[in-house]
């Protein structure tokens, strides 16, 4: 009967690292797929209001963001401006064409209004009228959960 010999192996015991790249690649692919790259720098200040009755938008690809707020100019606050994608909107009547074109590409578009909480309703109403003319009727008033972050659910 053969005996198992202790310490007969002359190689050091080692973890098998052969499958390590596979594991890492799997994680890598997960993050690559789920990543949405930060696409733009925002030229207007948007301090979002707080609300309770919030809904989540899971499909990030449906969202088109419209930023409304005072221009960032160092410490001083500039005039209220509108930014869609990476461009500031000079002529507010242009919004309808921009949004109409976006709607052709993505019929289930949600216009996410990121409006600074100190803005006035005049500009918001104006943008909404433009959105109606474009036919982009699904909107979302972007806001944060009430209370300091991390509290509540």
């Amino acid at each position, binding site marked *: 009967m053969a005996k198992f010999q202790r310490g007969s192996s002359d190689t050091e015991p080692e973890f098998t*690292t052969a499958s*390590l*790249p596979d594991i*890492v*690649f799997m*994680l*890598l692919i997960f*993050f*690559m797929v*789920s*990543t*949405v*790259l*930060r696409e733009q720098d925002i030229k207007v200040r948007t301090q979002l*209001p*707080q*609300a*309770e*009755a*919030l*809904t*989540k*938008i*899971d499909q*990030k690809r449906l*969202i088109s963001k419209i930023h409304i707020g005072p221009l960032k100019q160092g410490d001083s606050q500039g005039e209220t401006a509108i930014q869609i994608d990476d461009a500031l909107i000079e002529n507010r009547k242009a919004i309808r064409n921009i949004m109409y074109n976006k709607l052709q590409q993505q019929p289930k578009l*949600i216009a*996410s*209004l990121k*409006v*600074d*909480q*100190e*803005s*006035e*309703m*005049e500009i*918001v*109403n104006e943008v*909404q*009228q433009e*959105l*109606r*003319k474009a*036919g*982009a*009727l*699904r*909107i*979302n*008033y*972007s*806001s*944060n*959960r009430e209370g300091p972050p991390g509290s509540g659910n």
Partner: protein
Amino acid sequence: MAGLLDKRREDRDEAEIPTAGMADIAFLLLIFFLVTTTINVDTGIGMTLPPELNPDQKPPPVKERNLFKILVNAQGELLIEEDPASIGQLRRRVKEHVTNYGSNPDLAVSPDKAVISIKTGAQTPYNTYIEVLDEVWMAYREIWDQIAQTGRTPVKGESVDLAKTYSNYQEYYNTLEPGDDNKIRDAFGAQISIAEPDTGE
């Protein structure tokens, strides 16, 4: 010459790509994507704007009793059904209005006929507007919570065909697959209208 080539073939191992550095490369890429990933989900208050009306087309008529008017002025003060009111009363008043089922002649006939109208002035702070809108939605949320918990509509007690009871509306909402009917909202819909801004003033 041939002998030399033969010898070389014997000596050489199988040609391999060195894979030792592979994990390092993958880790580097992994860390890059980890850092650039934004996990935070966009949250907000969802609304649907009314479709654009033709100039000669009149907005659909709504009976005065079904309409619940909220006006917000430039100072952020509220006018509910023509009376000055505070934002703290809003949620209760909205719930009263939509769950009236015709019992009070000044309030809505039925929930699906009730319309909450929010009108703002040009100088109204956006913050106040969101606060008002939030309160109105929360009034509906509380009613929906109640339906999710009991499986019945409030006051009238019509049964809503839910598979089970839930601790709140959000829990029910999370079980819905895209394309599923939201039975709670079908049974008790919310009509919130953003009033047309005044054009000439």
